[in-house]
């Protein structure tokens, strides 16, 4: 099994359900609110009272158009709402209004940068273009609550606050080949959803839900294997782990001479295993038909152009600009454009310090590390682009050392402040004063005669050791360039 990646290839397609950032529901005037008392964000329409009728939320249409344009897709001039009929207690009408044969958005794509396995710290990436089959508008269902404490005894309770919340279902082509690609696709898609302000796409709040279709085939084969669908994956890690677990399960079946059966799978993150929930041969017949309560959704080309004109710069456009105009690597540009706030932070820092490359280095190496460690967003720190730019100027100008800069940086992140003043107040200026460095160099040369002899003999390697000793005595404040020059001058004359 260990070498499965050499023998098998995965074929993965992703379906995403994302909550649209609208003020009200897809077909009712009830507000979209999270954390509201159960059944307090509902309207007669959401309760499916006798005699009510749906009215389409134009804001949701606007957002669907935005997403469609952002993924280079066709926004269809005519699309149709259909009823998907099935009985469930949290589905009040007994049908979900969705789009079936004629979705609002079709045939798009997005470019995904995937870290190459084994590349140093993922700093090598390949870019892959992933097709998007369609995106369609539909309403969410309510929630069934089986918690005894809430529902009481053997009963279940139903909260319809979520019923009717607008969703965009975005379906990818089966173009993804590894679990890492699948999660990179999701991250990129989330970045786009946020960049164009279509959704907050917060997985923890259930605003972005993911199903993965997985099949395997031997390398070199061109036909698809039988696929299974893993439902309700709610974090990037779960997506990767579940796809891997399901692929291994399928490979094991095939290696044992058994067949993969079409099924809906669940994923248990504790045990990192997938399990069959329902076989597809028992598939429900949803009896789709066009909803006679709604008219065709017609979108005028002029409206599409107006939306296009209102779109902000998209992540991939920004990425291309960062590479071409600012000289960043594909990896750097990719990382810095994962969210709009990060990209804006980078651009401000770069223009304030005058060095895009240094700004990129600092943000990717230091800022992102801190954000990850403390689970923060960039806006939640005290650090501003002006502060970081100030610090970068101090380092690049040789006025402070890397070690001192790290100290200043830590303060800026938690408390903020003027980097130069902090440097002065805390005595963190680089020592480039030759007198002081000379003194430390003399002490070190005297203390390590054997090393000095080695260097004199033409071996430069131990020079780093001596530099370290001088730095140590200067408490890290000596400017490394001057230390090196001073040592060489003294030893080699």
């Amino acid at each position, binding site marked *: 099994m260990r070498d499965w990646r050499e023998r098998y290839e995965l074929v993965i397609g992703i379906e995403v359900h994302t909550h649209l950032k609208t003020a009200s529901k897809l077909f009712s005037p009830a507000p979209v609110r999270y954390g509201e008392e159960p059944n307090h964000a509902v309207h007669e329409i959401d309760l499916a009272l*006798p005699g*009510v009728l749906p009215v389409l939320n134009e804001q949701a249409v606007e957002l669907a158009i935005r997403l469609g344009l952002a993924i280079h897709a066709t926004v269809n001039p005519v699309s149709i709402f259909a009823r998907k009929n099935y009985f469930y207690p949290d589905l009040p009408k007994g049908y979900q209004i969705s789009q079936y044969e004629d979705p609002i958005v079709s045939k798009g794509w997005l470019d995904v940068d995937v870290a190459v396995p084994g590349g140093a710290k993922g700093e090598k990436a390949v870019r892959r273009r992933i097709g998007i089959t369609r995106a369609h508008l539909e309403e969410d269902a309510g929630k069934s609550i089986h918690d005894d404490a809430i529902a009481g005894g053997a009963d279940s309770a139903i909260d319809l606050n979520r019923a009717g919340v607008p969703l965009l279902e975005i379906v990818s082509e089966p173009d993804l080949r590894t679990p890492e690609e699948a999660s990179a696709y999701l991250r990129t898609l989330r970045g786009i959803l946020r960049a164009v302000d279509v959704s907050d796409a917060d997985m923890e709040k259930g605003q972005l839900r993911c199903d993965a279709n997985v099949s395997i085939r031997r390398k070199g084969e061109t036909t698809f294997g039988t696929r299974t669908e893993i439902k309700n994956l709610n974090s990037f890690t779960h997506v990767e782990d579940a796809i891997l677990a399901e692929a291994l399960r399928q490979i094991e079946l095939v290696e044992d001479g058994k067949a993969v059966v079409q099924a809906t799978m669940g994923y248990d993150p504790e045990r990192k295993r997938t399990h069959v929930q329902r076989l597809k041969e028992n598939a429900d*017949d949803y009896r789709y038909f066009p909803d006679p309560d709604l008219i065709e959704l017609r979108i005028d080309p002029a409206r599409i152009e107006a939306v296009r004109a209102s779109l902000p710069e998209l992540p991939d456009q920004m990425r291309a600009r960062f590479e071409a105009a600012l000289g960043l690597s594909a990896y750097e540009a990719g990382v810095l454009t994962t969210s709009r706030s990060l990209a804006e932070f980078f651009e401000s820092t770069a223009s304030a310090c005058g060095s895009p490359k240094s700004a990129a280095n600092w943000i990717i190496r230091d800022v992102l590390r801190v954000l990850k460690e403390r689970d923060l967003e960039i806006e939640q720190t005290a650090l501003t682009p002006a502060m970081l730019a100030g610090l970068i100027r101090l380092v690049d100008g040789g006025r402070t050392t890397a070690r001192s800069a790290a100290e200043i940086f830590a303060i800026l992140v938690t408390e903020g402040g003027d980097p130069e003043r902090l440097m002065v107040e805390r005595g963190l200026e680089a020592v480039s004063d030759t007198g002081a460095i000379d003194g430390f160099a003399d002490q070190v040369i005297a203390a390590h005669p054997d090393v000095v002899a080695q260097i004199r003999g033409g071996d430069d390697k131990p020079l780093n050791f001596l530099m370290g000793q001088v730095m140590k005595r200067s408490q890290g404040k000596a400017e490394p360039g001057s230390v090196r020059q001073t040592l060489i001058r003294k030893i080699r004359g």
Partner: protein
Amino acid sequence: MSQAEKVLSGSLRTLREALDRKELTASELVEASLARMDRGKDLAAVVTRNDEKALRAAEEASRRIAAGKPRSVLDGIPVVLKHNIVEQGELATCSSRILENFVSPYDATVVERLRAAGAVFVGRANMDEFAMGSSTESSIYGPAHNPWDPTRSCGGSSGGSAAAVAAGFAPIALGSDTGGSIRQPASFCGVVGFKPSYGRISRWGLIAFASSLDQIGPFARTVSDCAAAFELMAGHDARDSTSLPEPAPKVCERLDGEVAGMTIGLPKEYFVEQGVSPGVLARVREAIAVLDKAGAKIVPVSLPHTTHTIATYYLVATAEASSNLARYDGVRYGRRAKDPVDLEDLYRRSRSEGFGAEVKRRILLGTYVLSAGYYDAYYGKAQRVRTLIRRDFELAFAQCDVILTPTAPETAFRLGEKSGDPLAMYLSDVYTVSANLAGLPALSLPCGLSDGLPVGLQLLGKPFDEASILRVGDAFERATPHHRLVPPGAAS
């Protein structure tokens, strides 16, 4: 019979004049309406009432009228609502066990508009369960009876509304028409029934049977009364996406009694000897002669897809109904089975106990025609034929302004006569369903009696041209006495 009760038997215009001349008050009028309903209780035409609320509304109307500030032609006028049109705080049962105790927390658009016009809702009318029927027999309240002959059906599904107007309970009643449910009962009860174009009157608050066919409309004793009520209800409503985005047309001012210069088409497929009773055919032919004499041009037209209308209608209507009625699941409101063992049991028993036989039959049919593998053969094909039927009318209306047909192939049948034979019941809709499939406005008005029972004349118009059929109907009325015929028991 009190003076007020006598006035109540008249047209809306005579009632309006009596109120405005202070010959009687709105309160007296509404009391008379309630008294008449008490006496006519055995008809089972109006099955639930809220007298206290009606009398309160009447008092307010009386004060407005006394102050010389009536809100509209309907201010203080008793109006009966069909049991599938919701009013806040009132039962709306659709004559079904499953909604037996359902009280609506909101108003239908038509209720809102008529209340704003001052109308007083005096009672709610019996109907076929969920409007599925042509006889008002499939009802938890029992069958409604025809005021002309209580052993006969008043038609359906809006039979209670038609009987209420015929029996003199109120000058205006509202019904709904999915395949003839206003026109056929109007024909059986000898009153005027008007189904406007699809999209003309908001369906917000009309409990759905088949969404693409349902339309609310008025019953009255004259065409001009129907037109007056129609003007107050019609016009765009943002809560109904299928509502035409235009204000109500001014039809009343078009009723000038003239038909000279108008062309009336007679579809040859509707005037075949078999299937239509000789008495009905005779009255309709007399009506044609009246219009001919009044100056209308009578021309033959053809609607070649007529033979497919019943099949098409029952595929489309049942498919939509099967989905529309899925919400009655015992979970949120309506009938809920006692002590279900699990979810499946809750659904199965709530719906088995809650729905009657005809509703179940149609849900099953509709579920079947939408099923995977059958969709194209049934629902898909029905939609294509529907387009052909619409096209038939477009071509026919290139040659005429209005199409004239019988409303129903026969006069009121006996209660029980067809209730055991669903197919025979479906076939009695043959002249009415095409207007729903094509979205056309359609009017049924009395054109005389056959063996002592009323016969209805149907006029069909171009989409959204309500004015032409109302104009022809009004002119016919002015030229004939038929609309003044009242059932023996209701004579003043």
